[in-house]
């Protein structure tokens, strides 16, 4: 047993046999990637063969904890779900916060790896001794909401904490998520990976205290960080939550509207965070072990359960689909959460379908017939379509359950040019033409268009770059943003803390020293951030990545923004290509974007590990 932060082992559960074994986790691995998304990426690579089907028995789903979960540090109750995405065919990781993360860690584990497929629909129960695969015919195929399934599991197994898939995960919707206690590992279809394994839920139970190398120092850091987490740096999250972004983005013409045909929305005033706060606020909440409390709940109708709303849900199910009715957007967000689908991909795919319908691109027959009343702004139609997608119950629902990239390939014609994705993953709420350093971050992202693994929008909002032009300078910002995000997601701490930390890498190293007893330094953590990106890229290369994937849909190069403060903005294809090359150089990749052979050789023993 080490001095702190780690239990130095993970649990590998083979669902097919079924069996479970504890696998040692050596110090070299822990120092190299810290935990969270880094550990998850490494274990995913180690536990799978090249070219595996993300929905097949060889697929692995990794639940990776960080060294800080279970400590008194604010926002540390997090875990990373990591797998090969059935949406992108590339690596995907989703973070989630809840007592599930704490209970899993306190089962004496740094990670849980699920491989194989259960013989019948089951739940997996994990504790300090190992794991049990328990058939659950009473939960599978019953059309329960996430809340209903979670409630039943909680009653049946009161000592466990659960991560659950919804009906969309069971039906293998390629952007189904995994939910735990109201939080969602939403992106990339990780819920479908679990569904393909016929696993409805994972339950964890544990009571082992997470060891602290220096408890007094850890407590001191935790108190200081908690104090700072309540300062002005996080006031936006406490006062309004992330929905505050909408009005600002609209004013800056950075708000994706009608499937990225515009970047301002004429009905923004009806759904902006300030308006929701004034007319519908119903209190706020927080993740487990969080002092910030960014969750804001809003009234749908009097007497109904309030709905939690975030900016990404709001933009994707609102302006992106041309919908300005706050009640519809709130209902849609709640539906996605209860069906278990990612709101960004759901909104993006439906917006794409709305544009196809308005352009008359669906082939004559059932698809065109079903899409005849699908138009931007058709809120009630969107609500029905969400149900159709999650259950794959109509031709259009089945098509859109595949995500916008696959749907566009099937629709054909000009559809792929405006399918709003990178590497198959739908683009979040940052208009690339108005935020072009972020556009670069989207293009090179290892899990596709991603605002959480690349915070490059911060450069666009900093005044340090021209937000209407991606440049070589943008590349430096994109790399720095990725490195910092990778380390935050390895520790794991909430990104909303970032402005409360004056010296992110230095303070993170101090935390790690106090918790683990290992001599982490700031410079080492910068290298860890870069290394995690390379591990992800090596996984993607192994699974068939090509340089042509690091780009944006043609729309962003060929169509200028039509109005607002970004009127006339477009992305210059050649300039963007130069910024990608600059990114490759700064990231230490070869000119085409591959990890150089000598670097891959140096990382081979880390990637391979000692246990396989």
């Amino acid at each position: 047993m080490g001095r702190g932060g780690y239990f130095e082992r993970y649990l590998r559960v083979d669902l097919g046999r079924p069996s479970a074994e504890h696998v040692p986790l050596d110090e070299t691995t822990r120092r190299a990637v810290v935990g969270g998304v880094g550990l998850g990426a490494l274990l995913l690579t180690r536990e799978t063969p090249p070219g595996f089907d993300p929905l097949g028995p060889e697929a692995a789903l990794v639940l990776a904890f960080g060294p800080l979960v279970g400590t008194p540090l604010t926002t540390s109750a997090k875990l990373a779900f990591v797998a090969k995405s059935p949406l992108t065919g590339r690596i995907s990781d989703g973070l989630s916060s809840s007592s599930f993360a704490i209970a899993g860690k306190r089962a004496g584990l740094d990670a849980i790896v699920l491989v194989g497929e259960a013989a019948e629909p089951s739940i997996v129960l994990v504790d300090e001794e190992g794991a049990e695969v328990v058939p659950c015919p009473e939960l599978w195929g019953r059309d329960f909401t996430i809340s209903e399934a979670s409630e039943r599991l909680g009653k049946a197994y009161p000592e466990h904490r659960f991560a659950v898939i919804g009906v969309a995960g069971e039906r293998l919707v390629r952007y189904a998520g995994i939910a735990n206690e109201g939080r969602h590992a939403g992106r990339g279809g990780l819920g479908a990976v679990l569904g393909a394994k016929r696993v409805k839920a994972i339950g964890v139970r544990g009571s082992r205290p997470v060891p602290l190398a220096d408890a007094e120092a850890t407590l001191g850091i935790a108190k200081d960080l908690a104090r700072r987490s309540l300062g002005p740096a996080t006031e936006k999250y406490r006062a309004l939550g992330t929905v505050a972004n909408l009005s600002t983005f609209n004013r800056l013409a950075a708000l994706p509207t009608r499937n990225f045909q515009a970047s301002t929305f004429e009905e923004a005033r009806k759904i902006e965070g300030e308006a929701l706060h004034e007319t519908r606020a119903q209190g706020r909440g927080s993740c487990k072990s969080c002092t910030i409390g960014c969750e804001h709940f809003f009234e749908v109708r009097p007497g109904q359960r309030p709905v939690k709303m975030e900016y990404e849900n709001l933009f994707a199910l609102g302006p992106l689909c041309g919908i300005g009715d706050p009640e519809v957007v709130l209902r849609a967000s709640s539906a996605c959460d209860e069906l278990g689908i990612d709101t960004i991909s759901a909104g993006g795919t439906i917006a794409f379908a709305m544009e196809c319908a308005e352009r008359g691109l669906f082939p004559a027959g059932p698809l065109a017939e079903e899409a005849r009343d699908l138009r931007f702004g058709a809120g009630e139609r969107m609500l029905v379509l969400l149900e159709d997608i999650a259950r794959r119950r109509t031709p259009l629902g089945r098509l859109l359950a595949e995500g916008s990239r696959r749907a566009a390939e099937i629709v054909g014609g000009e559809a792929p040019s405006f399918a709003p994705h990178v590497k198959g993953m739908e683009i979040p709420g940052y208009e690339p033409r108005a935020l072009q350093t972020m556009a670069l971050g989207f293009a090179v992202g290892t899990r596709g268009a991603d605002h959480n693994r690349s915070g490059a929008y911060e450069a666009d909002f900093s005044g340090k770059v021209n937000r209407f032009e991606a440049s070589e300078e943008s590349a430096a910002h994109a790399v720095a943003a990725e490195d910092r995000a990778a380390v935050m997601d390895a520790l794991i701490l909430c990104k909303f803390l970032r402005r409360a930390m004056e010296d992110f890498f230095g303070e993170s190293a101090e935390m790690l020293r106090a918790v683990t007893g290992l001599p982490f330094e700031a410079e080492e953590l910068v290298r860890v951030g870069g290394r995690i990106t390379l591990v992800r890229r090596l996984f993607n290369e192994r699974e068939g990545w090509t340089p042509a994937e690091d780009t944006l849909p043609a729309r962003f190069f060929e169509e200028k923004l039509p109005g607002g403060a970004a009127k006339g903005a477009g992305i210059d294809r050649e300039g963007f290509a130069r910024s990608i090359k600059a990114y490759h150089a700064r990231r230490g990749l070869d000119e085409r974007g591959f990890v150089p052979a000598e670097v891959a050789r140096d990382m081979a023993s880390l990637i391979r590990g000692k246990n396989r």
Partner: protein
Amino acid sequence: MVTIELYGVARLRAGREVIEVDARSLGDALVALGAACPALERVIVAGGRLAPGWLVALNGAQITADLATPLGEGDVVVLVSADAGG
């Protein structure tokens, strides 16, 4: 006159959406903003400067914190939280 538009926390704190000030530079405008809206002082504007995490978009376009940025009749200063994530 220069128009200052407020969004998010700034709007909540000030209790208004728009303020008009007489200013020839961004620095002038921020001094006037702080005087007109004491609730913004220290947290969003501090003695004529922007507090950490706050910037402006001049006429909604380019983003800056340069206090010497000249302003003219009809310019719009959009006060922006640099913390855009979520």
